[in-house]
């Protein structure tokens, strides 16, 4: 298990840092390719959402320079970035991925969007070939764990989510949402969800603007709303009391001058901006205007923190599931670790058997088919009996996390070193290394 993970999330890094690391959907495939081209990285995948940017890899030696990759790729210095990074290896990396996929590490614990986002990142990485056997196993398991957490705990069922927090905040501003208009800028899933919540609380009508007009029409139809051409955004936006914005624009699309225009046209009636885009769509200067209330992703996190207690209990149950799943996954991987050793042991003994049979044939001359069959049965029987104990021991050891030592012993006993270049030989190298260090001490 040589998983290695590095990243930033809403807890470790402010929005300003996450903005600089955010990777757009378009650039993600190239970024995955760059990642696997980095020394020591066999497989790699990147999850980039508004709350996190994480690089998950399977490395050849378990200690690839992932910080170096981030520095190079994002042109950031160690001073700017390193204090915000977290790094996990092996079992802890697996645990982290399970927690992320199960939405236990989310800003709003239990929200469902993250699983979809991880699946998309996985699909992208698979499509470019940067995810193969090892990460494939990890993520397939992570999705199953997420499903289990969702079905066995109520962590995702409570109404607390970005959407309901947005509704709550809107009520603090407007009192009632009856008759209020909602404007969606950028037809993303999260904004759709927020809009659905707002409409359920009585908002009157909905406008949708998107760079692709067809998508705007599609979403507007879902709510019996009105699609607005993106060029008309600034002319139409003041009709809305609540604006949910989540475009992929690299810079703020709502700036101070726009805010002033809106307020003047609205006779200073307040406007509530829910800015779930990273980088942010609403400039901080505009957010300062009297009558403009702009909440970005980090602000929403503050707002949901008060709900944290409601979910704590369910989250504890979910954590227990994660812990048991990590153990299971680890055991399974260890079992997989012993497989190459078993195979090479079988190969090794089969080679010996064949060589001995050939030698006997050479000495005894041609044998009758009956004799051939008897010899075949005899030798196979011996080989199987000899192999039985080592294979059983290997499998048991794998379940008990002793695989490395036992693999090492079996490989040394049967001189399997040079025939297999899989994980087992790596484990062998590592354990030999450890022993050397211990001897020196």
């Amino acid at each position, binding site marked *: 298990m040589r998983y290695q993970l590095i990243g930033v999330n809403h807890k470790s890094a402010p929005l300003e840092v996450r903005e600089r690391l955010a990777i757009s959907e378009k650039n993600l495939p190239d970024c995955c390719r760059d990642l696997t081209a980095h020394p020591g990285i066999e497989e790699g995948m990147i999850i980039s959402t508004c709350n996190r940017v994480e690089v998950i890899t399977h490395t050849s030696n378990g200690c690839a320079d992932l910080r170096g990759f981030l520095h190079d790729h994002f042109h950031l210095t160690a001073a700017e970035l390193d204090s915000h990074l977290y790094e996990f290896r092996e079992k802890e990396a697996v645990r982290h991925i399970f927690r992320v996929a199960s939405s236990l590490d989310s800003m709003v614990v239990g929200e469902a969007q993250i699983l979809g986002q991880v699946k998309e990142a996985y699909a992208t990485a698979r499509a470019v070939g940067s995810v193969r056997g090892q990460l494939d196993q990890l993520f397939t398991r992570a999705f199953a764990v997420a499903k289990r957490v969702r079905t066995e705990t109520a962590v995702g069922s409570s109404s607390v989510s970005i959407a309901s927090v947005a509704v709550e905040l809107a*009520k603090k501003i407007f*009192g009632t949402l009856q008759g209020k208009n909602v404007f969606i800028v950028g037809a993303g899933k999260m904004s759709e969800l927020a809009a659905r919540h707002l409409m359920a609380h009585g908002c009157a009508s909905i406008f949708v603007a998107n760079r692709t007009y067809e998508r705007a029409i599609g979403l507007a139809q879902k709510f019996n709303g009105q699609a607005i051409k993106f060029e008309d955004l600034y002319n139409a936006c003041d009709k809305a009391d609540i604006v949910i914005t989540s475009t992929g624009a690299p810079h703020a699309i709502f700036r101070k001058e726009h805010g002033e225009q809106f307020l003047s046209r609205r006779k*200073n009636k307040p406007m509530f901006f829910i800015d779930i885009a990273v980088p942010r769509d609403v400039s901080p200067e505009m957010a300062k205007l*009297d009558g403009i209330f702009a909440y970005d992703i980090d602000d929403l996190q503050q707002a949901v923190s*008060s709900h944290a207690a409601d979910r704590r209990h369910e989250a504890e149950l979910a954590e227990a599931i994660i812990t048991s799943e990590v153990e299971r996954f680890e055991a399974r991987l260890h079992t997989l670790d012993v497989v190459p050793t078993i195979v090479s042991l079988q190969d090794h003994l089969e080679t010996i058997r064949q060589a001995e049979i050939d030698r006997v044939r050479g000495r005894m001359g041609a044998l009758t088919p009956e004799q051939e069959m008897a010899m075949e049965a005899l030798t196979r029987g011996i080989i199987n009996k000899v192999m039985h104990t080592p294979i059983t021991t290997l499998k048991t050891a794998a379940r008990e996390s002793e695989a490395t030592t036992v693999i090492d012993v079996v490989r040394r006993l049967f001189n399997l070193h040079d025939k297999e270049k899989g994980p087992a030989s790596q484990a062998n190298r590592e354990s030999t290394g450890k022993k050397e260090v211990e001897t020196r001490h």
Partner: protein
Amino acid sequence: MSLLWLRFALACYFIGLTYAFFALTRTSDLFSRIALHAASLGMVFHFVSLVELFLAGHVVWASVHNGESLLAFFSMTFFMIIYSIYQTTSPGVVVFPIVFFLTFVAAIDEQPVLLTGFVQHKGWLIAHIILIFTGYAALVLSFGASLLYLLQERRLKAKKPSSLISFLPALEVIDQIGYRSLLLGFPFMTLGLITGSVVAMSTYGHIDFADPKILLSILMWLVYMIMVFTRWNSGWRGRRAAVLATCAFVAAVVAWAANYFSTIHRFVAS
């Protein structure tokens, strides 16, 4: 006896006053309910005090203390109307201290201070006092609402939903309270000034615009009008509205204080 009832009312309002200070630092539903009941009881005592004064024929319309008592009562009435509509006690943060102060001054029973003149046209005088005081009470509420609006706006801008002053109603509700008080108060204030002018005209035969009381009253009315206009025309809220409301409130207090300097509308010891 009237004074005794007023002092009972004062004791009840005191609970409202403590609530007002308490509410600035933390939220308590229980205390808010206690304050509300205490204030209602206070209003009953206050009403009894006013009725008794009236029935005993002791009402001296030109008495400053009676006027203060009446203004306090009107302010409480406004507060209760708002409570019945919006189910919020938060304007009490501003209203309770003002009401307590007015009732306190009215209840200390020093030598009653009277205003000069005004012996004739008693009906006009009564109308003037009631209208002006209703206008003042609306202004007090509007001023209170604009301060609460500022507080709530700051809180929402600071993005700390768990902050201490979370008892405040929604921003737009506070805004409505302020705006409706303002709209309601304006005709009363205007009519109050007109009736006052009628009383002054009939008493003195002319209106002395150089008199500080007249000048400040007109100034107050102008600020009031600007507030209504800016709100109606460009929807001024928040900081700008609060500045205007503070100006109008200060103008009202100064106009009241002008009773010490005015020649035609002056406090004199009885």
